């Protein structure tokens, strides 16, 4: 309760500001239409008009919610191409596009995390690798890697790879470096005394890794996985921009071409919900694993 009230207040304030902004930003169009028709609008009429325009500059929250509902539940259950009538997901619904983006994100994230994990293990166990690769891994965090996304898509398409793989490559690339940097930190986090203790037990390098380094690194792994999965989702969305073959990014771009603001906002909220679900899933896994290991605070 104590935490919920302030959060709800802030959210309510944001929605209120949004409504005010909707009226303010759409009023010009309403006034222009009225002037063209030669009628004078009262303030109440302007407000009513701005909240229900066909192509508003800024759609009102309830319009976005209605669009989301229409493009998910209504489209799938009653639409001609919806899952109820045709047996497959409708290519107009955000469920379909969200699923495309989600599958690319998940595949890319799995690849990126796996490779990042392996590289981190290599870096921790090989000094030459540490000294030569680590500075580049850190420096790569300062580079706008996302800029290469269109090139990867087009180049992979020219060698015949289309669909989920190019998007997953971008997602993997984006989630790779946070995991490497976080895991190296985590695998190095055991203290000297703990490492010395294992040495007095004459533990092998593999035993040190499985029994000490890996468990100690898990909090770091989960922290960087949260960063990585958010980055992977952004990568998948941007990867969908150059080729219009479905996905939330394609919906964003199509909406901006045709001035369908409600569609853009609906796609944006779907992306936000996906991001929240993904980060939430990593967080839930983290809590479950850490509790199982007795490391939960």
């Amino acid at each position: 309760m104590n935490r919920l009230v302030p959060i709800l207040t802030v959210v309510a304030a944001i929605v209120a500001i949004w409504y005010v902004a909707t009226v303010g930003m759409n009023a010009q169009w309403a006034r222009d239409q009225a002037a063209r028709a030669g009628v004078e609008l009262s303030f109440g009429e302007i407000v009513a008009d701005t909240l229900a325009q066909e192509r508003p500059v800024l759609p009102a929250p309830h319009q976005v919610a209605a669009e989301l509902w229409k493009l998910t539940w209504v489209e799938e259950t009653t639409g001609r191409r919806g899952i109820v009538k045709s047996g497959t997901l409708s290519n107009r619904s955000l469920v379909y596009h969200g699923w495309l983006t989600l599958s690319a994100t998940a595949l890319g994230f799995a690849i990126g995390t796996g490779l990042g994990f392996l590289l981190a293990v290599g870096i921790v166990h090989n000094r030459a690798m540490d000294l030569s690769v680590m500075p580049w891994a850190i420096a790569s965090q300062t580079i706008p890697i996302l800029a290469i996304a269109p090139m990867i898509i087009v180049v992979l398409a020219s060698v015949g790879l289309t669909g989920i793989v190019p998007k997953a490559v971008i997602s993997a690339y984006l989630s790779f470096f946070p995991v490497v940097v976080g895991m190296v930190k985590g695998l190095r986090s055991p203290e000297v005394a703990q490492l010395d203790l294992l040495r007095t037990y004459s533990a092998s390098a593999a035993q040190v890794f499985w029994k000490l380094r890996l468990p100690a690194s898990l909090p770091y792994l989960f922290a960087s996985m949260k960063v990585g999965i958010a980055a992977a989702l952004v990568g998948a969305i941007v990867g969908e921009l150059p080729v219009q073959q479905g996905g939330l990014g394609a919906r964003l771009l199509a909406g901006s071409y045709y001035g369908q603001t409600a569609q853009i906002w609906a796609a944006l909220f779907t992306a936000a919900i996906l991001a929240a679900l993904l980060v939430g899933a990593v967080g839930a896994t983290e809590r479950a694993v850490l509790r199982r290991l007795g490391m939960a605070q």
Partner: protein
Amino acid sequence: MTWFWGAILFWLAAWALNARLAAGPAARHPAVRLAIPALFGVTLLVLWEGIVRGLQVSPVILPAPTEIGATIAASLPILWGDFVQTIVKGALSGYVIGCSAAVATAIAIDRSPFLQRGLLPVGNFIAALPIVGTAPILVMWFGFDWQSKAAVVVVMVFFPVLVNTVAGLAASERMQRDLMATWSASYWQTLWKLRLPAAMPFIFNGLKIATTLALIGAIVAEFFGSPTRGMGFRISTAVGQLALPLVWAEIAVAALAGSAFYGLVATIERGVTFWHPSQRGRS
């Protein structure tokens, strides 16, 4: 094939040298610590060049580094124009506006624990969202020129900096604040002389995260519409024309600009937070 095997040979030789350097007694010397990653970078370039030439990879798939270098040298005016349009006008102005707005907001909500408890979770949540998705909306509102890119950057950098600043303003200890109170320091004196300096490591952490976000925002926003210059515009159109050396040239500029931007902020941080344990002990 000579190119290919030569590159492989170079790679093995460089790796052997690096392994020796890293294991040897000289590994602690600063010059060696710089030489090892530099050698690794050069090895990657040589390997790249050798594979492209040796296996005759089409330049449409992967151009060789020398070709990219030649393109950079030949199209300096284009690259400079794009750099000014995207980085200086779009990213930097948005970065300055967004970061100052975030710090100002953090100071404003700092007096109300209620607002903090409400805004922090919301801010943390929004910071994890794919905010680049707002780019098409902002491009629609602010037009194709750099103003819309700056707006995207403002939205992207705002929340990470806000969350870090709020955390930083809470970083001064009770004892220190009590000491200021015994000197009957006003709220603003406490803020200016104790809490803002104590918050600086946190604020700079946010500012450093924001540098990368700013560049990403400015470049990606150009994919949604831009005037006929700018790095994002050039990348997307050059990809369409399969002019990959030019794309790589832009990426090289973006990488350089990103590292330089980050380095600049890190240098300022070192000057401002010289007292912090993480900065002490470095000369």
